[in-house]
Each structure stands twice: as C-alpha cells, then as structure tokens.
C-alpha cells in the first residue's frame, strides 16, 4: 500500500494550473475574511460565539492544519467551509465565490465518522455517487469505491456493517467516503483520531503521497502536534473559545517527511514542535471562560 490508487486518475493537476504561473503565486482557494460565527442555543435562548474574526487563506494544493484546544471552533470552521453553517459576520468564499451551500468539490471526513449504520461499508463509500453526479459510470464508481476501501485497509470488509467493525475501522470507512470522489478539497476533522497507531502511520503516508503527487488541497484538524508537523504546509493555532487565530506557523521542512522515515531527528523538527507546543499549551491551560455572548454584534 505505497500509494493511493486514486492519486492520479483524472485529477486536475494543480501544479500546472495557470494561476500558479501568475506572479501572485498559488491561487487562493478558500478565503475567509473577518469571519465570526457560532450557534443559536434554542433552549437557553442564547447565542454562542464559536469563532471570532477568522481571516485565513488556504491556497490550491496547500495542506492547512488547524490545531487548538477542544471546543475552540475547529469543527465549526470546517463546517463553514463545507457549507453546512453560515458565518454571522464576515465572508467565506471558495474558488472566488461566496460559500452558500455544500458542493461536490468539498468532501469531508467527520470527527464522529458519521457513517450510516444501515449501510454496508461499500454502500457507505458509494453514497457520494448516489447523491451527486460525479460524471462517472456506476461501474466505475463501484470500482473506485472498492479500490479506495482497500487503500484504507478495509479490503474484504466491503459487505460488513459498521456495527461489525471497530471504531478505527469505522473511521476508515469515513475516510474512504471522503476520498472516493477525489474532491478538490478534503476537509478532514481529526480523521485519524480513532485509528490505531500503525494504521495511522500508513494513512498519513498515503495522504502525504496524495498531496505530493496530485496536489491535493487539505484542511486538516488534529490534536497531535507531531501529526501537524508531519503533514502540514502551515499550521494555524486557534485560541480557546471564542476561537481566534493565534498564529500561523509555516512548516518549512522538505517533503516527503514520512516516506523517508524519521523526521524527528531533524533539529528544525524539534524547534517547530517546541514552538507549537508552547502556543497550544498556553491556549489549553490559559482558557478564560467566556462562554456566552448575548449578542453576536457585541
């Protein structure tokens, strides 16, 4: 399992896109400007601000990692980009257009897997093709779904139901479903959180290959600083709720970082790790409690 079979099949190669050639550098794909958003708590009749003033740009082919204490709004951010929730203030746009809903070019891997318990592994992975026309035949979709399932290490489990699988295996079903359509952007919410350490390394390696070979754009949430450094081009550290961007750290280390084995020996790795850790630690333990905002404008 060296490389995802989905990696170079009919995928637009971002590196040859004409925007890339322009003097302004890589094309911005996801742009949020002063975005503030949150939730309406119906029972408490209150508005909860989850994210404040987020201005972040993710370029085409970029691997953006978000880290931050739990509850800081990482999932909320990814939900806005997916088109599931709308910002209260500010803008969020994708490919130059404001995000008004979900789209075939943005797929998501969910933190809590969100796979249908009444569908087999294969049926779950085929769901995106059932719901949208991705321009491939039924037979091709089936083939691709099977290939993706075997890429995530679930070959032989196509006919199993989620309740027959372990937590890590269920998460891999969610990963396969997110990748099967070869979306322009993969939004991954702690995708390897429940996966065992060995499978995680394999999947991280595959994801890195996908990024290197196909220029996959990824927005990736993780709790692990090591994972952030191993995978990210940039790491955005989000403060505790209401989340703001504390700092964006460039991971200026050459790829492949995982296929070559150890990057942990590199002195730069140690520096980055220390720096990120100090930022995250501040946020995790320095959390002041500002739970509710009566008025989002306030």
């Amino acid at each position, binding site marked *: 399992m060296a490389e995802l079979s989905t990696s170079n099949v009919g995928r637009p190669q971002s590196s040859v896109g004409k925007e890339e050639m322009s003097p302004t550098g890589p094309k911005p794909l996801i742009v949020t400007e002063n975005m503030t958003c949150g939730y309406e708590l119906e029972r408490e009749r209150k508005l909860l601000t989850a994210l404040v003033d987020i201005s972040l740009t993710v370029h085409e082919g970029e691997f953006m990692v978000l880290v931050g204490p739990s509850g800081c709004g990482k999932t909320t951010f990814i939900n806005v980009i997916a088109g599931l929730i709308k910002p209260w203030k500010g803008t969020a746009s994708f490919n130059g257009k404001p995000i008004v809903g979900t789209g075939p070019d943005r797929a998501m891997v969910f933190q809590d897997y969100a796979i249908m318990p009444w569908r087999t592994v294969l049926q779950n992975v085929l*769901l995106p093709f059932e719901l949208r026309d991705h321009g491939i035949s039924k037979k091709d979709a089936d083939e691709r779904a099977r290939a993706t399932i075997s890429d995530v290490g679930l070959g032989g489990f196509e006919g199993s139901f989620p309740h027959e699988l372990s937590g890590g295996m269920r998460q891999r079903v969610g990963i396969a479903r997110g990748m099967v359509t070869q979306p322009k952007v993969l939004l991954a919410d702690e995708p390897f959180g429940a996966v065992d350490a060995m499978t995680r390394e394999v999947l991280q390696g595959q994801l890195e290959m996908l990024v290197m070979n196909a220029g996959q754009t990824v927005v990736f949430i993780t709790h692990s600083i090591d994972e952030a450094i191993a995978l990210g081009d940039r790491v955005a550290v989000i403060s505790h709720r209401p989340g703001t961007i504390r700092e964006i750290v460039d991971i200026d280390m050459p790829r492949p970082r995982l296929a070559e084995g150890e990057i942990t020996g590199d002195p730069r790795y140690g520096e980055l790790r220390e720096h990120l850790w100090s930022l995250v630690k501040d946020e995790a333990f320095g959390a002041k409690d500002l739970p509710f905002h009566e008025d989002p404008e306030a």
Partner: protein
Amino acid sequence: MTQAPIKNTDGTSIESQPRLREAKWTWGRIWTRYRYGIITVINLSVFFAIWQWFASSGRVNPLIFPEFTDVLRTLKIGWFGGGNLEGFNNRMLADFVIVKNFWETLKIYSLAMVIAIGCGIPIGLAMGGSKWLDAILSPYVWTLSSLPRIAIYPILLLFLGIGPQIKYAIILSTAIFPVIINTWAGVKTTDQSLINAAKVFGANKSQVYRKVVLPYTLPFVVSGVQLSLSRGLIGVVLAEFLSGATTLGGIGWLVFRSAAAFNSPLTYAALMSLAVFALILVQGTRSMEAKIAPWRQATTT
C-alpha cells in the same frame, strides 16, 4: 471477496475428512441441548398438577376456580367442537364457542391495528418533519396518549352508540399513540451528524429524508408497532367487556360473560386462549427489531 476454501496442511480439503465425529447421545448431552424445553415442560406440568390438586381438594368453590381437567375439556369443545355437554356446567358453552369468538376478536383487532399503524406512521412522520404540524398536533397527541383511555368511553358511547364502531374507536385510541410517538421520536432524534454527512455529499431535503431520516426512524417505528400491538390487545378486550353484545362479542366478551354466568371453566379456557395468542404475538414481534435493525441491537449492548 471470495475466500479460498480452507485446506489441511497436506493439501486435502478439510471437507473430505469426517468432520466432528458424531457425538454419542448421553443423558448429559440431551440435558445441555434441551434443558430449557425440559425445564419448561416440568415447570408447566407441576403448575397444572398443583392447580388440579388444589381445585379438586374442595378448598375452593369450583364456580370460582375450576379443575384444570374441566378447563381442558372446555378448551377442546370450544375450539374443536364435539362436546358431550351432559352433566357438565354448560351455561354458554357450545361447540366452537371459543374459536368463533376468537375469530370475531381477531377480525376487529387486525383491521383496527392496520388502521392504527397505517395512520400512526404518517402522522408521526409528519409531526417529526414539520415544526408547525408538531406544534399544532402535539397538545392533542400528548393529552390523549396520557389520558386513561377508559375515561373517554362515556363520550364515545354517546357519539357512537353500542356497536362495532365503538370497538374500533377504543382500539384505535389505545393503539395509535405508541406508533405516532415512537415514529415522531425517531425523526426528532435522527443523528445530526448523519444528516450533515448526507448534506456534504450532496443530499437535498428529500434525499436527507429518504436516505437518513427514514432508515434511522425505522427501528423506532418497529418498537412503536410492537408496543401498539399489545396496547391494542388491551383495547380490544376492554371494548368487548364494555360492549353490549348478547352473542359473539369476541374473546373478551366471552371471558366477561362466562364469569358473570359462573361458568369458570369457560372463563379460564377463554383466558388461556387469549394468553397464548398474546404470547405468540409478542414473541413474534420481539425478533422483528433485531431482524430489521441489527445495528441498534449491537449499539445498545
């Protein structure tokens, strides 16, 4: 993926060798295999033997507590006919009296249940799916479902008079609410992250409903139906108790009237028939949920 047949180390198929040697039948083996059946048979035999001994000991009035053998005889006559009724407490007892009343009950019960389930599911779905309908209907649904149903009998009687309509009305009023409420609860509690996943991958409103909400709700509907089947059974017996029928009032009517006529063997025989029917019904629907929604079973354990 097809799996290669398992081979022995020497390459021969495992199938070609005798599998497990046929075990010898010993008492121990028979016991481990059939113990629950054996225990049940012994249990019931002891129960009926004590019944028989107690009833024939002269300690209780046979008008209240009949001998078990009399009940058996009554069951035979009531179900299969051919009774020699002479010298037997034969008030109300006639050939086939139980089976005829049983069919009467079954007829009304099954039609009423079809109506209850057929209306309850769409009402529950609609209430779960629309905030407006929910707001409009829920006060009535919750009030009626909490009210002891027998309390509305006098009103129903005024409206419908004595007759089959009132039976249907009572059964419906007892059986429809579990279906409505469970279906509603299924729709309401549908996992938001499953809905989000469907949306991300392109589901429109109707697809979210068909591909997430309905499958998620199905096991709730099944338990609602289960509950409603047993509630409906209470309803039908209650309705028959209260109905003014003079003949062929159903199995509940038979229990009620035979007791009033001090024909205790018939009362017990009718009751036992009802018990067996209820048992079959409940046991039959118990395995339904496991078959329809195996994932729910697995997540609750």
